[in-house]
Every structure is written in structure tokens, then in C-alpha cells.
């Protein structure tokens, strides 16, 4: 019994990481209807940036985030205004193909720069620290990851609904032409949205790098986890994204409990089951 509760708790906490993968994806889809195939590779890029920063300056990965986040944000803004804005439109192929191209470029650039050897961010004692709750042992790092995920999502929710920036995001998402009439330059607004999304991706990348080892080829898998969390939770609902991440995480830990080879597969199957019974996700945004 306690074993299964443990599985459940681990799954929920793992879901926090997946929600972080998903949050950026969800944000840019919400604002500009863009699905970024390179999203997973950008997470891995952030992990490598974190790695280089820790090595170069000899700092803790959390301190490295102070550099990685703004760099990722700048990459996002430049990418959006330089390339991705030109792909937006009714046709889905240009953004898909261009981000696919980016994915191949990022993967191979990382391969060229860092080789295919697995790497890991070393965060010291926190990696193994844990607290006991009753007879459960909960790792501090997963707990912290989950808390960060909740904070990030709460922050995004607040930004979206209570700030001028968020108002601009919603307006551009509703009607680009009319938003432009109100003095919003959509190219800039999209750039800001991508900057914010990649800053979140930066957080996700560093936490991923501390938690597990990574290599240039694993971006695609992270994209899929994020995507599954978004769809399970329901498009356009940012708290739903957290719920989606948690469901995915729990499905994976249950799968792993049955057979270690089943971890990822169980997550995919959970996703397909949700798709079969609730094609709009579990918590779709209510239409007014």
C-alpha cells in the first residue's frame, strides 16, 4: 500500500517537471497558435547552456539560471522576430517545417559542440536530500521542482490575466488586426511571448539537467511529454497543463512500477486513452 502511495507521490512530483515542459508550449500556442517542434531541443539547449555556465564560472546550476534564463529569452525574441513571425498564417506547414528544421539544426549543433556523451548538472547535496513524511521519503529536488512549476504557472496565470502585457497577449490572440489598431505591434508581442516561453523553458532545462542525464538527441521526447501534458489538460487552460503534467507523471511512475521498460509507454497510453474518451482534454477552457 505505502509503496503505491509512494509511486503516486513521485508521479505527481514528476508531473511538475512535465508541466514546466508544457507551460512554454501552451503559452505560445495560446498567443500565436504556433506549435514549436524545436521546443524539446530548446529545453536541452538550456540544459547545455546551464552546463557551460556552471563549468565556466564554477557556479551552482541555480545560479547559472540567472544567466541562462535571460539568454534563452533573448534567443526566443530574436528567433520569433527573425524567423518564426514569417511562418505564421493559416497554413500549418511553414511553422511546422521551420521548427523541424530548427530542431535538426539545434540537435546537430549541440552534437558538434558537446558530443553525444551524456552530461549532467551537478547540484550538490540537494540532489540526494529528502524529507520524511510519515513513512514516505520525498526527495527535496522533486519537491522543489514541483513547487517551482506551481509558482511558474501561477505567475503565468497572473501575468496573463492581471497585467498590461497579459492583456496584450490575450488581445493579439483574440484578433491580431484589431489589436494592431490599438497600437500593439504584433511582431513585438509575439517576440515577447516567445521570450517568456523560452525563459520558462530555461527553468525546465536546468531542472531536467539536475534530475537526469541528457544528451543532444533527447529533445524530441521532451517535446512529446510537454505536448501530452497540454492535450491531457485541455488546450488554453494553463492550470489544466499542470494537471496534465501530473497525470502524465503518475501514469509513467505507475508504468515503471509494473515494469521499468514501461515507464514512457504508460504515459503515451494514458495520453491516447484521454484522446479517445475526451478529445478536448480533461479541463478544456470554457467557451463564453
Amino acid at each position: 500500500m505505502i509503496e503505491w502511495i509512494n509511486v503516486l507521490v513521485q508521479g505527481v512530483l514528476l508531473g511538475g517537471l512535465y508541466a514546466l515542459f508544457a507551460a512554454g508550449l501552451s503559452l505560445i500556442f495560446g498567443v500565436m497558435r504556433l506549435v514549436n517542434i524545436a521546443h524539446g531541443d530548446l529545453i536541452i539547449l538550456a540544459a547545455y547552456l546551464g552546463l557551460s555556465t556552471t563549468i565556466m564560472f564554477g557556479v551552482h546550476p541555480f545560479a547559472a539560471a540567472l544567466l541562462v534564463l535571460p539568454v534563452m529569452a533573448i534567443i526566443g525574441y530574436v528567433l520569433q522576430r527573425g524567423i518564426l513571425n514569417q511562418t505564421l498564417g493559416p497554413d500549418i506547414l511553414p511553422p511546422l517545417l521551420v521548427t523541424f528544421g530548427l530542431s535538426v539544426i539545434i540537435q546537430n549543433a549541440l552534437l558538434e559542440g558537446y558530443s553525444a556523451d551524456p552530461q549532467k548538472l551537478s547540484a550538490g547535496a540537494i540532489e540526494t536530500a529528502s524529507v520524511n513524511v510519515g513513512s514516505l521519503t520525498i526527495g527535496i529536488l522533486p519537491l522543489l521542482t514541483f513547487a517551482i512549476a506551481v509558482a511558474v504557472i501561477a505567475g503565468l496565470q497572473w501575468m496573463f490575466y492581471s497585467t498590461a502585457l497579459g492583456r496584450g497577449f490575450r488581445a493579439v490572440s483574440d484578433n491580431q488586426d484589431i489589436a494592431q489598431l490599438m497600437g500593439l505591434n504584433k511582431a513585438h508581442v509575439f517576440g515577447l511571448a516567445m521570450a517568456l516561453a523560452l525563459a520558462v523553458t530555461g527553468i525546465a532545462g536546468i531542472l531536467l539537467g539536475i534530475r537526469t542525464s541528457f544528451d543532444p538527441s533527447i529533445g524530441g521526447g521532451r517535446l512529446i511529454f510537454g505536448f501530452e501534458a497540454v492535450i491531457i489538460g485541455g488546450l488554453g487552460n494553463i492550470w489544466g497543463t499542470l494537471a496534465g503534467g501530473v497525470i502524465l507523471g503518475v501514469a509513467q511512475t505507475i508504468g515503471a512500477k509494473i515494469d521499468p521498460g514501461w515507464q514512457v509507454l504508460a504515459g503515451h497510453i494514458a495520453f491516447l486513452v484521454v484522446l479517445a474518451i475526451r478529445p478536448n482534454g480533461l479541463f478544456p477552457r470554457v467557451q463564453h
Partner: protein
Amino acid sequence: MSDPILSLSKLNAYYGDFQALYGVDMDIHAGEVVAIIGANGAGKSTLMRSISGLMSNASDQVRFKGEAIGSLRADEVAYRGLALVPEGRQLFPSLSVEENLMLGGKVGRAGPWSLDTVFELFPVLQERRKQASTSLSGGQQQMVAIGRALMANPEVILFDEISLGLAPVIIKTIYDALPGIIGGGMTALVVEQDISKALEVSSRVFCLQEGRVSLAGATHDVTRDQITAAYFGVVA
């Protein structure tokens, strides 16, 4: 006469291969209220899109206070003091009434219009400020759309078919509010398919037919027959 505040010279507009406007010339002076009428497809909305920057044209075909703005983006035009109340209201559904209005004020131009003065003009909006804009009636939505454009404190305001899809009694309410808006010296272009309403508020009228100006003159000079001829292209 002083220089026009808004001036169109030989304005051509295209959608791909299709030419929607053919060499439209128009001078609008500060403080004027000008009506633009014409049948469906005559090019009225294209004209509004061209002036407001939603459609890009040759730079010097549209001039605002002497500056060539024909090729500027809509947001750049908005900052210069030109606002559009779009056809069909087009409020932002994810924004509340108040947020819609606040976004209108984003360009931050100084002037008489603020949340308070807009609520004074349309008191019903104050009661509903926190509501989703989609929960309002058509007439109330139109008030938000007008208020949103006013919040920019524009020098020239364009009204595109503001009576569209509204019941006659509501249209009357909206038009009754117009003098309070443009009485303050604001320049206005009123596009309407409700011809009599347009003529009522305007001092000059342009009629468009198939992308060309088919009639132009002072409102009190043009006759109903002239309008019918210019509007339909045939004498009824």
C-alpha cells in the same frame, strides 16, 4: 482653407490580383464629419483598412497631417492619432469591458477621453465593466467599440458601419451620443449603409461605387436622386 488633416491621393488598393480601390482622392479637414456611403463591395471597408494601416499602400497615397502614412503598420498609425471603430464591433472576447477600453488607451495620447469620461458617455458600461465583453448586447458592444477607439484620444476617428446588425432603437441611442463625441472638434469619417443616418450627422458626403468615388459634395447640396444614381450605378 487650411491644409487637410487627412488626405488621400490616387489611392489604389489590392487584394492579390483584385483591385478594390481605383485612384480615390479625398481631402478631410480638421473638425469635419464626412459620410462615406456605397453599396456592398463598393470599397468602403477597404478604404477604412487603407487609412488605418490594416492594409499597406504606397506611402504617399495616404497623408495624415502632412506625413505620408500609407505604408505604416496599423499600430504606428494608431500612435499618430487615428482610431477606427471596426465593422462588426470586434471586441476582444477574452477581455472584460474595462480591459477592452484600457487597451484602447494603450497608445497613451493625452486628451479628454478616459475610462471616467467614456463611462459618463455610456453609463451602462460602468455597471458592466467587469463583465466579459461577449456577454453584452449588440448595442452595448458597439458602445464598448466606440469607447475603445475614443480612449486613444484620436484626432481623426473612423466609424465603420456602426449601425450594422443593431435594432433601430439602439442605432438611435448610438447616434444620439455622436454629437457628444464629435462635438468636441474631433474629425470623423462615418461609413454607413444606413444612408439617412450618415447624412444626418455629416457635413460632406462621398459615395463609392466599384472602388471609385461616384459622388462628392456637401450633404445639404446632394439630392436623393443623385445619391441613388451614385449608389446603385443606375437611376432608380
